[in-house]
Structures are given as structure tokens and as C-alpha cells.
């Protein structure tokens, strides 16, 4: 896969299809890849890397990149392609300046997950079939890829690249039984007090680094209201418990019905807050109230919360679902 991707990147540059390529750059270790732009064969040969650690979703970079001169090639995994298509729909990416190479994906691994299993000091990783062979400061270790997957990949919703100019590997299918709403169901089964306590516990760890917002493909405002001093609600730290909650809830509302559940928010959170659960709650509610909807899966449908039809549910649905006055 890695070699095919690198060869494709070189081919697209050299045959003039594009003048630059967006991919992942090798880091100091096998696992610390950084999104990067490549403009020459030499750069690609030396530093382009694709592995189970190419987790970063490249779609959002195309908002800026597609506004530059020439055409750019990008490699999109299935979940990244949903984000890309959603951004196309929102007219945030200029489609004619992007050449999309879809890549089949079996899931991405995370060094945080590996560390959490008690394996530390990892200086090198080698993919070996279904396993990762780890060289550590404390001897060699092996871990199954399946045990090192990101949460979003454990509960992968789709292996289908939804928009591409060409594919590398065989395109997959949607996965209806992903179990991605299992935890949401557990939260729904809690009493309001328990649920409140759960979220207070999680959100109180927030350090307001804004990584979730800045990585989020659905958060594409030129200037976020929370960064805008003139908005009256700009804040660099939570001055109160209320504000801590406010930021995340406002964000979840703002991306509701546009969030594709790419999982980047939870991947990047330095405090391990399961932010994806807020988004999944919205997705589940939207499915229930407006009919099954997957953001980014096509170019035609309107996101339910950005659309009006006469059979939309009434606001009073809140009470029908157990809400109290």
C-alpha cells in the first residue's frame, strides 16, 4: 500500500496532473507522522510515509490549499472522504483544484492506545501482518494491530471512499453494525443527574487548547466566535464551570448534521475527553427525528438541520421524549 501510494504521488506530479501532493511526512519515529506537502520526486522518496499511523485527516487542509495556484493531489481514507465531501457541499473546497486518490483502509493505530496498554519507550514499529513489532527501550514487544486501533476505527462506520478520482486498493462498504452508538445508548440510559455528572467530569478536564475545534473539518469558520473579542464570549480559559460546558456544547450544536463522525476531535484531545460522544448523540437523535442521515455521504441531500420540510418534528418533540418544563 505504502509503495503504491508513493508511486502514485510521484506519477501525478511528474505527469503534470498536479503541482503538489498532500500526504504524510515521516517523523522521528515510525508513529509520529505529520501532514505535509510534497513538490518533488526526491521529497516523496525520502520523506513521504503511509502506515497505520497515517491517522490525520487531510481534508481540512484543502480549504486553504485548493485556493492556491495549480492543482493538488490528496490521499483520502474512507472517513476522510466523508469530511472532504461535506466540505465540498459547503463550498469550502474548490473541487477542480483537487485530485483525490482514495485509499482503502483497515483502521489506524494510535501510540496513545499502545502506551495505555503499558508498552512504553517505543523507538521503532514494524508492521508485520496483523501485528505491530515494537522496538522499545525495554526490549522488543508485539501487539496485535486490532489492539492498537483508534476508537473510531474499532467502531468504523464505513470503509467506502465516497468521492475519488481514482482508488488505490479495493473500495469497501458501509458498516451498518459498527456499534458506534453503544456508548451513547449507555449515556441515554442514565438518569439526567448521572449523565450530568458524567459530562461534568469529562468536560472539567478541558484545558481549552482548541485542538478539537482546530482539527475539526466541520469547524471551518474563518474566525471562531470564541476567538473574536468583539463577540463578547471570547475566552482563553474557562472562567467558570458554565463556560467549560458552554464551549463544547455550542461547538457540538454548530457542527450537528454536518459532523461526519470522523473522530478527529477525540483523537487529538490531550485530555482524553470523549468528545465524539457528544457528536454521536446528535447524529443518533437526527437519525431518529429526521430519518437516517450520514453527513458527507453524497453531494445532493441537505443536512437535516440546514433544511426545512413540512414533516419535520416540532420543537415539542423534546417533551414527547421525556423533557420536563
Amino acid at each position, binding site marked *: 500500500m505504502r509503495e503504491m501510494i508513493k508511486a502514485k504521488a510521484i506519477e501525478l506530479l511528474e505527469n503534470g496532473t498536479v503541482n503538489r501532493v498532500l500526504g504524510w*511526512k515521516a*517523523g*522521528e*519515529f515510525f508513529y*509520529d*507522522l*505529520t*501532514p*505535509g*506537502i510534497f513538490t518533488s520526486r526526491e521529497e516523496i522518496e525520502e520523506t513521504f510515509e503511509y502506515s497505520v499511523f497515517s491517522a*490525520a485527516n487531510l481534508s481540512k*487542509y484543502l480549504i486553504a490549499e485548493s485556493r492556491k495556484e495549480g492543482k493538488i493531489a490528496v490521499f483520502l481514507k474512507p472517513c476522510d472522504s466523508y469530511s472532504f465531501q461535506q466540505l465540498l457541499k459547503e463550498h469550502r473546497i474548490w473541487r477542480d483544484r483537487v485530485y483525490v486518490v482514495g485509499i482503502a483502509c483497515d483502521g489506524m493505530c494510535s*501510540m*496513545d492506545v499502545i*502506551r*495505555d496498554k*503499558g508498552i*512504553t*519507550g*517505543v*523507538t521503532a514499529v514494524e508492521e508485520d501482518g496483523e501485528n505491530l513489532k515494537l522496538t*522499545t*527501550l*525495554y526490549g522488543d514487544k508485539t501487539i496485535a494491530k486490532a489492539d492498537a486501533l483508534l476508537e473510531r476505527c474499532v467502531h468504523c462506520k464505513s470503509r467506502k471512499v465516497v468521492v475519488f478520482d481514482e482508488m488505490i486498493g479495493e473500495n469497501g462498504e458501509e458498516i451498518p453494525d459498527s456499534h458506534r452508538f453503544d456508548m451513547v445508548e449507555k449515556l441515554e440510559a442514565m438518569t439526567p443527574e448521572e449523565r450530568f455528572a458524567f459530562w461534568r467530569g*469529562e468536560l472539567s*478536564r478541558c*484545558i*481549552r*487548547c*482548541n*485542538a478539537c*475545534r*482546530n*482539527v475539526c473539518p466541520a469547524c471551518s469558520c474563518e*474566525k471562531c466566535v470564541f*476567538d473574536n*473579542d468583539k463577540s463578547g464570549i*471570547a*475566552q*482563553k*480559559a*474557562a*472562567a*467558570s464551570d458554565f463556560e467549560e460546558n458552554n464551549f463544547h456544547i455550542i461547538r457540538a450544536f454548530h457542527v450537528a448534521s454536518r459532523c461526519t463522525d470522523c473522530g*478527529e476531535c477525540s*483523537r*487529538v484531545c*490531550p*485530555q*482524553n*475527553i470523549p468528545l465524539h460522544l457528544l457528536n454521536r448523540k446528535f447524529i443518533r437523535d437526527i437519525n431518529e427525528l429526521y430519518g437516517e442521515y450520514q453527513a458527507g455521504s453524497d453531494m445532493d441531500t441537505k443536512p437535516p438541520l440546514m433544511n426545512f420540510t413540512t414533516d419535520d418534528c416540532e420543537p415539542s418533540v423534546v417533551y414527547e421524549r421525556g423533557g420536563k418544563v
Partner: protein
Amino acid sequence: MKKVFAADIYKVFAKVSQKSKLYIPADDGVSQARFLPYMEGMTLTEKLNTGRSAKDLFFPQVENLLKFKVSGKQIEIVDQRDEVESFVIFGVRACDCRSFDILDNVFLYDEPADTFYKTRRANGLVITLACNAPEETCFCTAFGIDPADPAGDITAWKMADAFYFRGNTDKGNALLAELELVEADEEAAHQQQEAIRAIAEKLPFGKLDLTGFDKEHLMEKFKDPRWAELSESCLGCGTCTFVCPTCQCYDIREFNNGKEIQRFRCWDSCMYSDFTMMAHGTNRPTQKERFRQRFMHKLVYYPSNYGGVYGCVGCGRCLQKCPVHTNIVKVAKTLGGENK
């Protein structure tokens, strides 16, 4: 040197916490450790270090300064200082302990001293803990820090059967005397130190070459065209700055609820678009300038201002936490050493 059997360490914690607040690194239930006030039943983390740094206890993310209460034409000013409590912090690693020296230069020795920080420093007693199992992201040794022999008021070593303690300051010795611990031979700790140093020797960035990061090369580094490439993937989030033990920038802001105005200070991040915003706007209009500011501050400006001491302690948190894995090691390797 004093000794406490591993089984008795929580008795020691209980005794210390009766007298003053005690913080220990404990798991927070979500695969991270953090400094939490000790309570009975709590256990020490097995993790090497805390997700957030020990800086938080001396320079908290948010600190209330004062409150204005308005009634009619009267404005009442309410002093909200609350940093008077004495506390002990156990388990600070060598890197985080060195970060206090870096913060001291800015908050204590530069005039005027920051009295909030000063009081917390005076009220805090630091017990460091040598690092038995450094991680690949650790590079404190590049800054002359010895993970086998950290500083602090008291230094502790954890062995299979016991903890060993050595007092380094009058304050530290006084606490050890109060605890009435058994005397121990220094040899055991020495063996532990040798084992740690053998691992430290193998750290991939332990000898990170920082040649050329100095006052003499300031403009050369500043103008280096490679900042553009280094910063191209930066998301502009504040993760690196907020997990950093040496980042010290803050903003002073107010929260007005119509009746009261709460004035507080909070950490700021040079990665943010409104960092040091002035009347004319900002002189760091793109992420390239913001990114450059952070690393120039750590590797060039700080050493230029404080006798060659770098503003980084090699704790490796930014290496582990950056969402796109861009970090100070990559910057130093690209712009420094042979590449200078």
C-alpha cells in the same frame, strides 16, 4: 538518606497530608495521570509522568486576581488572593523540577516579582522522584538534567521494596525529620541511579544538538526560510503550550456579569491568533510567525535573556500530545546542529 518500605508509603502520605495539602501523581481514570490532592485510598500512578505538568500548582491556568462590586456610584474592590495555603507535591520528575527554575527567572528574579507565583513557590515543598523508566520522548539530558538525580527540596527514589529519600534543602530536611523515617544506606539509591543513567544513555534525543541556538545566531534563525515548511501543518491549537512546563505567557481578562466584574489571569498561547493583540493589530499575522515565536522563545530568546539557559526541559509532552506531531525536536533537528 531515609527509607520507607513500599507498603508504608501511604502511611507517610497520610501523615504529610494531615499537616498540609499533599499532591501526588495519580491516575485520573482516563489513561492519564495528574497531580491530585491525596486522600486515603488513592494510589500512585504507574505512568512515567502526568499529562499536565507540575507547573499548574505554582502557576495555575486560571487565577482570580480581584473582583469589583458595583453598587450605585460605589465600586468595592475585593481582594481574592487564595495562594496562601502551604502544600507538598510528591513525585515531581527531574524535568518538571527544572522548569521551576525557568519560571523563577521570569516570575521571581525579573523585577517586579510576581507575588502570586512567589507566594506559591514559598508555600510549596517539592519532593522529586527519579525516573525509573524514561520514555522515548524524554530528552531532559540534552539540557543537562539528570533523571536519576532530580533536584527539589527532597529527592526520592522508588525501588521494588522501598522508597529512599534525601533532603536537599532546610525545608526538605525539616519535613524528613518530622516524619521520623529510618536511616538507610546510600548504596541502594546509587545502584538505582546507575540503572536509570544506563537507560538515559539510550534515549534517542538525549544528545539533541542545539548548536547555533543562541544570541549570536538570533537573526539568522529568525529569518530561516524553513519556518514556512515546519509550520505548514500546525493547527494553531494551544496543546503544546498548555501541556508545557515552561510556557509562561498569560493574559489578564475580565468577566462581567453586570453586577460584578471578575478580573482573572489565564494562560495564553502564542499559537493563538489574538496573542499579544495590540491596538494596531498583531505582528504575527499567520501561523508561521506564531509557530516561530514559540520555538524562538524556547531556543533563542530565553537563552539570550537568561545566560544561555534554554526554555525547554525535554519532558516530551509536546512530542506525545501534538495532534500533528510537529514539535521542538523536529525544529531543532531541522534548524540546528549541523544544519545551522
